[in-house]
C-alpha cells in the first residue's frame, strides 16, 4: 500500500508521521532539558549575551526551553497514538515553526538580536533548525498517511489466542 493512502491501524514502523513525531518529540524534549544547563543569568523571556548557546550554536532562554519541552511532549504523545494524531500534531507544529521561521527574522533584526523584542533569544542556527523542522514536519503531515483521520483509523489488530 502506498504511504500516502489510507492505512487503518497504521503500525509505528509503517507510518512516517508516527516515526517523525516520536523522533522529533524525543529530540525536542532532550534539547529542552539540556538547554537549562546554558541559561544561567539569562532573562526568562529575553536575549542572552551569546554564552547561552547550546554547544555554542543554538541560543536559548528559559522560555525557549519550556517551549521545546511542551512541543516535544505533544509530539511524543501524538507519535505514541495513531497515525491520524501524529499527522495532526506534525501539521500544527510544522505550521507554527514555519511562522516562527519568518517572524523570527523580524524579532532578531533590531540590535543584532540583542533587543528585548527577541523574547525567545533566537539566532541564525535557531532559524535554520526551526525552518528545517517546519519543512520536514509539514512535508510528512501533508505528504504521508493522507487518508489517516480519527474516523478512518482503527486500532492496531491484537493477536488472539484460541484455546
Amino acid at each position: 500500500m502506498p504511504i500516502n493512502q489510507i492505512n487503518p491501524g497504521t503500525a509505528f514502523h509503517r507510518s512516517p508521521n508516527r516515526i517523525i513525531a516520536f523522533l522529533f518529540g524525543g529530540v525536542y524534549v532532550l534539547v529542552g532539558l539540556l538547554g537549562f544547563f546554558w541559561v544561567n543569568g539569562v532573562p526568562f523571556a529575553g536575549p542572552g549575551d551569546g554564552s547561552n548557546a547550546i554547544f555554542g550554536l543554538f541560543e536559548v532562554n528559559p522560555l525557549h526551553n519550556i517551549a521545546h519541552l511542551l512541543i516535544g511532549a505533544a509530539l511524543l504523545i501524538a507519535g505514541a497514538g495513531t497515525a491520524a494524531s501524529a499527522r495532526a500534531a506534525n501539521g500544527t507544529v510544522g505550521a507554527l515553526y514555519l511562522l516562527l521561521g519568518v517572524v523570527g527574522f523580524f524579532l532578531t533584526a533590531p540590535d543584532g538580536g540583542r533587543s528585548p523584542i527577541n523574547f525567545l533569544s533566537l539566532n541564525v542556527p535557531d532559524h535554520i533548525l526551526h525552518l528545517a523542522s517546519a519543512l520536514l514536519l509539514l512535508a510528512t503531515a501533508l505528504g504521508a498517511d493522507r487518508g489517516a483521520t480519527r474516523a478512518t483509523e482503527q486500532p492496531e489488530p491484537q493477536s488472539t489466542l484460541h484455546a
Partner: protein
Amino acid sequence: MRTWPGLAAIGAGLIHLGSAAGTSPAVLVPLALLGALELLWGVAALARTPVPAPVPAAVGIGLALVVGVVALLLPPSAARHGSMVDLGVPPSAFLGAGLLDLATGMLVALQLLRAGRTPGESRPVRFLLGAAAAAAVVAVVTTQSLAATSVGGTMQMH
C-alpha cells in the same frame, strides 16, 4: 523525492516574502504576490500527487526566473549608463530564490516524465530521509538568503 518540488517552492516563497519587507511599494507588491503564490503552490504540491497545475506552475517559475535575472542585472547595467537603480533587495536573495525556483521547475519536469510509471512499494524511512535532506538544504539556502535582506542584515550567528 515526491516532496522536493513543494519544499523548494516554499523556500523560494519565503525568500521573496522576506525580502519584500521594507522595500518600496513598486517592488514590495510583485515580490509579495510572487512569494505568496510560491508558498501556496508549495503547500498544495506537498498535499497532492502528482503536483497541481504543472503547466501554469512551469510558466510561473519561468516568469519568476526572468524577474530574478532582470533584478540581478538591472542595478549594474544602470550604473554602467550613469544612473542608479536600488531595488532594496540584495542580490543573494534573488540568487537563493532563483536557485530554488530552478530546482522546483526541474523536479516538476522530472515528475511529469515519470508520471506513467507505477509507484514503488511503501518505504516510510526512505520517504523521511528524502524529505529530511530536502528540508535541510532548503532551510540553509532560505536562511542564508534572508540573512542578507533588510530584516536579517544585522543578525549574528550567536
